């Protein structure tokens, strides 16, 4: 008996010895549970229907991106960032490009900044669309999810028109973009912006003032502003607690301070607050894309940085000097300054940071991704303690933890 007790104690350190006198049962939520939307494992200790404690496991789809990145030239790391938060991969791509540009000291023009804002805000809309519709699914309302997914398809069509891929976009290059917006891209963006408000309004009508949904989400998975700040929360999860921290405003990048937009905040950081904050952020994103599209300046779609941006193809085909530079850039034999930079962007679910250390070689000496999902997941046991199992699932989906980002 004593031996068994010690064994259990070693497994669940969060419990005192007196807890085992009670009748607890252990439940494995995951790793492949249909309700967790990804590879997450939680070992829950249940007292009947109530969760007494949880232990989360990470690393089921760890692919060692930070280590792989140490062996790749800078431009080849972009496809790796696609696979972090795959619901909004263009934000990851552009965030990485801006990190490298910060290291190299490349200043981008207004046109590139505005093009980036358009793409990043579209990506934010898709990310929030998925998250909010999945909150609906997990609280038992599948219908809204299906209506919103049609809109997500339209954004993926826009990505396809810009870069040629839908999910793993590999969009943009260091110093700008690989190709300009074609007229059909602009048309598709305008069509999307005209159609979305109606669908979004309809979705809000379905859920936001519905008592079943409100009862199901208010005070579920709440966290105080102090605890959230101590954990290092960012993005919608922090704003839901009432802290108006937004990287786009606090540490403006890519000319975000040219635009005026509201930072929506919640009151006590529960699932309903997170839902409302995301919903309002989508309305703000629509406004931002519209503004950026209207004020899109004329100019080139990439900066004149011959050392880092590939020379025009017609010169590569016919002239010696561009061909040499083309080989140097593709082989990664360009001179990169020594130094370390941290750059963060407001990703779909929080502050996505890139910490890059360069020793002047062809690859990064060290690269760290600050993934917001990883930080939210640390607070998950605290947030679900004392709630019932179905609320734990709702809390997880409302935090928008993406498995690919959590495990990197």
């Amino acid at each position: 008996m004593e031996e068994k007790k010690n064994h259990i104690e070693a497994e669940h350190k969060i419990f005192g010895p007196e807890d085992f006198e009670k009748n607890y049962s252990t439940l494995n939520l995951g790793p492949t549970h249909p309700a967790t939307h990804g590879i997450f494992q939680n070992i829950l200790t249940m007292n009947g229907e109530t969760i007494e404690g949880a232990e989360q496991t990470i690393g089921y789809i760890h692919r060692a991106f930070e280590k792989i990145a140490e062996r790749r030239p800078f431009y080849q790391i972009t496809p790796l960032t696609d696979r972090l938060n795959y619901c909004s991969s263009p934000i990851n791509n552009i965030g990485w490009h801006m990190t490298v540009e910060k290291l190299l000291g490349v200043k981008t023009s207004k046109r590139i900044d505005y093009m980036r804002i358009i793409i990043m805000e579209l990506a934010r809309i898709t990310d929030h669309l998925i998250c909010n519709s999945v909150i609906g699914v997990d609280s038992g309302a599948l219908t809204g999810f299906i209506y919103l997914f049609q809109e997500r398809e339209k954004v993926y069509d826009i990505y396809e028109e810009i870069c040629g891929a839908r999910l793993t976009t590999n969009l943009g290059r260091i110093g700008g973009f690989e190709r300009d917006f074609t007229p059909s891209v602009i048309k598709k963006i305008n069509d999307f912006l005209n159609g979305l408000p109606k669908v979004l309004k309809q979705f809000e009508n379905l859920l936001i003032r519905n008592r079943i949904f409100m009862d199901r989400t208010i005070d579920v998975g709440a966290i105080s502003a102090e605890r959230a700040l101590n954990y290092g929360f960012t993005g919608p999860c922090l704003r839901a607690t009432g802290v108006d921290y937004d990287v786009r405003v606090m540490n403006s990048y890519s000319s975000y301070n040219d635009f005026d937009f509201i930072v929506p905040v919640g009151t006590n950081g529960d699932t309903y607050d997170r839902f409302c904050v995301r919903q309002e952020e989508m309305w703000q994103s629509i406004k931002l894309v519209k503004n950026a599209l209207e004020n899109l300046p004329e100019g080139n779609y990439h900066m004149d940085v011959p050392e880092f941006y590939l020379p025009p193809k017609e010169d590569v085909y016919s002239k010696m000097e561009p061909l040499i530079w083309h080989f140097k850039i593709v082989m990664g034999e360009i001179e990169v300054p020594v130094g370390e930079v941290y750059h963060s962007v407001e990703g779909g679910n929080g502050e996505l940071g890139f910490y890059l250390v360069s020793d002047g070689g062809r690859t990064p000496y060290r690269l760290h991704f600050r993934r917001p999902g990883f930080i939210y997941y640390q607070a998950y046991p605290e947030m679900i303690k004392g709630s019932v199992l179905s609320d734990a699932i709702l809390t997880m989906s409302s935090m928008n933890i993406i498995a690919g980002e959590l495990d990197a």
Partner: protein
Amino acid sequence: MTEEKKTYTFTTRSKVVSNKKMTFMEKIYFPAIIKGMLITFSHLFKKKTTIQYPEVKRNIAEIYRGKHVLKRDDEGRERCTACGLCALSCPAEAITMIAAERKADEMHLYREEKYAKVYEINMLRCIFCGLCEEACPKEAIFLTNEIVPSNYERENFIYGKDKLVEPMDKDKRIDISKRQTTAVLEFKKDKNQSHNN
């Protein structure tokens, strides 16, 4: 313990968006159910958004990054010179090539004096990022808007030159001009350039 709830405000742009107080009408929750049912019901009469694949196919963008093609020039000679830049730039290490020297009787087959004897792309490794297309200095490899079909055997996903090189027949050549910039298309009209003849 001086203040119950501390507020954290960093900007002047913040706005509280969630309202948790329910009105009487919201509390009785029948109107919300009826409203929801009406929205669902109205969708019965809307245009269907599903596509009846495979009878109907979605329009794929012209610059879609799908199956690769190895181009030939106007006279039907393979453009690839086996420089290896595509294999080097591939983040997934999906491209394998073995170079060989062109013989005197192969002038009509290969454009340059070095050519790729073996050129294989492992379509299970390939992530369709398009970096090989960008790295090619000889206008030889392009991605097309065709999708790699499924198969039962893993071996069949290793595409060799038999599947990658475009047909010799001029009518069956694959048009990739939509993927190129207008400056390149302009340049290709100039037949005095050694790249174009």
